[in-house]
């Protein structure tokens, strides 16, 4: 393996891992605050890609159309997330939530097929990010570097929201003692809907941000379900920093696994899961 190959693979692994991180962020937030297991979370990622594509298509030619589409797609998926949360409200047990949200994976996939058909859609990389930079003779795609930056920024913004704002304090308080927060006059249903919406927004935005690196098609959610849950579980359910570390580990193991034995790249990921869970069953930064 040459240094060029190593560096390119490292960047590629970090990119893939941080896309997983963006999707896992929303899931970690929802689980951490509301203790809801939402198997359909990657479907929100897929919805974000589809909504975003068609918004971008309508805005094509306008300045900043891609960036506007990311925000609008995120908002559209946030609305879808809030609707999903409404249906999830009566379900307290994780098994009920798993079954219910599993059904929603198929419902969302069929709705996407119905509205947008089964073809592949592609989104060009936005102007300014569609080329590459050469560092020491090594070609690095600009968009990959952008994804690394924006996903870390998203994580930082969510962390700031939760730790430095009044809303964040309320959300954290609700994690520890819902009854107390309710007694203080804060309407928990609205709070949880907002949290779910924020989680869905992040997933939807991630869907469109990742789209220029591949294709938008039905089935892109199924590809994400296992890796995203792996990231959340080995990071520690509800932990942002844990999700970040886990996603980078998963991304790099997968990327370098392809170099070693492409057919086993997924399997290497699960070896890592087993090892981490044996050493720390609660996840890397999960609470015991």
């Amino acid at each position, binding site marked *: 393996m040459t240094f060029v*190959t190593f560096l390119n*693979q490292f960047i*590629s692994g970090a990119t893939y891992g941080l896309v997983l991180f963006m999707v896992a962020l929303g899931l970690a937030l929802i689980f951490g605050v509301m203790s809801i297991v939402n198997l359909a979370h990657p479907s929100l990622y897929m919805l974000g890609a589809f909504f975003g594509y068609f918004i971008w298509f309508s805005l094509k030619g306008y300045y900043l159309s891609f960036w506007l589409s990311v925000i609008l797609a995120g908002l559209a998926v946030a609305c879808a997330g809030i609707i999903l949360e409404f249906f999830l409200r009566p379900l307290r047990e994780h098994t009920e939530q798993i079954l219910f949200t599993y059904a929603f994976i198929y419902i969302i996939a069929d709705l996407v097929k119905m509205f947008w058909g089964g073809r592949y859609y592609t989104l060009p990389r936005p102007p300014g990010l569609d080329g590459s930079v050469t560092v020491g003779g090594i070609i690095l795609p600009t968009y990959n570097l952008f994804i690394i930056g924006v996903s870390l920024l998203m994580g930082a913004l969510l962390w700031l929201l939760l730790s430095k704002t009044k809303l964040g304090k309320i959300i954290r308080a609700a994690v520890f003692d819902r009854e107390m927060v309710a007694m203080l006059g804060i309407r928990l249903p609205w709070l949880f809907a907002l949290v779910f919406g924020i989680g869905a927004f992040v997933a939807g935005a991630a869907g469109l941000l990742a789209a220029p690196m591949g*294709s938008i098609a039905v089935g892109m959610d199924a*590809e994400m379900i296992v890796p995203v849950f792996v990231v959340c579980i080995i990071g520690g359910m509800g932990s942002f920093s844990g999700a970040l570390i886990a996603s980078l580990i998963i991304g790099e193991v997968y990327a370098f696994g392809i170099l070693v034995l*492409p057919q086993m790249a997924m399997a290497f990921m699960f070896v890592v899961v087993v090892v981490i869970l044996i050493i720390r069953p609660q996840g890397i930064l999960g609470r015991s």
Partner: protein
Amino acid sequence: MERYSKGKVLACVVGILALCFITLPFTSAANAGTVKLGLITDLTGAAFVTARDSADGARVAVDRINAEGGILGNKVELLVRDSALKTDMGVSHARELILDKKVNLIVGPISSGVRLAISDVCRVFKVVLIDGIGGSVSLHRERGHDYFWQLSVPTSGESYGAAVGCSIFKEVETMVTIAPDYVWGRQEIEGFTAPFKEMRPDVKILENYWPKLGEKDYTPYITAIIAKKPDLMYSVLYGGDWINFVKQAKPYGLFEKMQVFCFAEASSQIGLGKEAPEGTWGFGRAPAPSIRTPQMKTFIKAYKEKMGRWPSDASVTTYDAFMVFKYGAEKAKSIDGPAWVKAMKGATVETLRGTLTFRQCDNLSNSPEYIGPLVYEPEYGFVVFKPALAIDTAPIALSCEEIMQLRKKAKK
């Protein structure tokens, strides 16, 4: 709680049974004068896009057949079943269509493995199975029989056509291949390598790359290919895989560094649109926009009007499969399997791709493989062959004697 008397229960059961039997004659009457044709295709799973196009091609064919008076004066009813890439489901649907629905034809599915299993069912029940997709050569070779008809190019012909295409580039001295790591990908490279080495013994194949089907990250393959500095890259990636590869390879300038010869399957080309790389050449089974026959023009118009999008290769070949069945039924003056087979042995038919002839011994048609430079056409919004060169795949077909020997060996 009310207890139900045995008499009441018996009366209910008899009543339900009577209802079933009473409605039977009406059902039969409603279906009298209807010919049922079956399409089994893989609408669930990775082949969904191709399967959907295949089903749509079938629907356009059935519309056309019914508009022209049906088959032997009988209206045609299309029955579509989803085999979901599963052999057991394909077999189950085949049996249901044949035994329960009494279909006279089955077309499909996408998966060669499922098609092999369905072929055995059709052989037993003497129902015609027309392959409109292409795929494994086993279907017409050692597992072939009178009721299986290979209308589309099998894998061997497809890869032979690609080999002819790659051999055109006289300045090429080195090349690499990249194909999805499963049966079809392996067969394509195997079928390509032998004839290509005969045509161009001067070209060295530096490496074969085998990403897994559905790979998301092509970076290691892209950087490895560029590092090898080949003159030509032969790619058999398709669908989302080819789109992902192109999008990830473009920033590395791969398409400027070497000639690329790729599987120009419609769904990925339509998906890529303007983003398809310039200067590539491709190969395909039935590139509708590039085949300039009057019948193709009519078909594209009808397809677009009904489906609202361009037809793909699968749409064309499945449409042809149903039209071939109609032709055969009219020739035989019968929709009965044995009569149809007898009438169609060695027959020449008109299809969207022009005139095709079925070989007497194994029902293999002389479908060409198409190659050509891929050029973006604003009229279509994606790249098309310009021009599309039809490559005769007959040279690669096994002789009838070889086919019979393979079948004899397989029976032992």
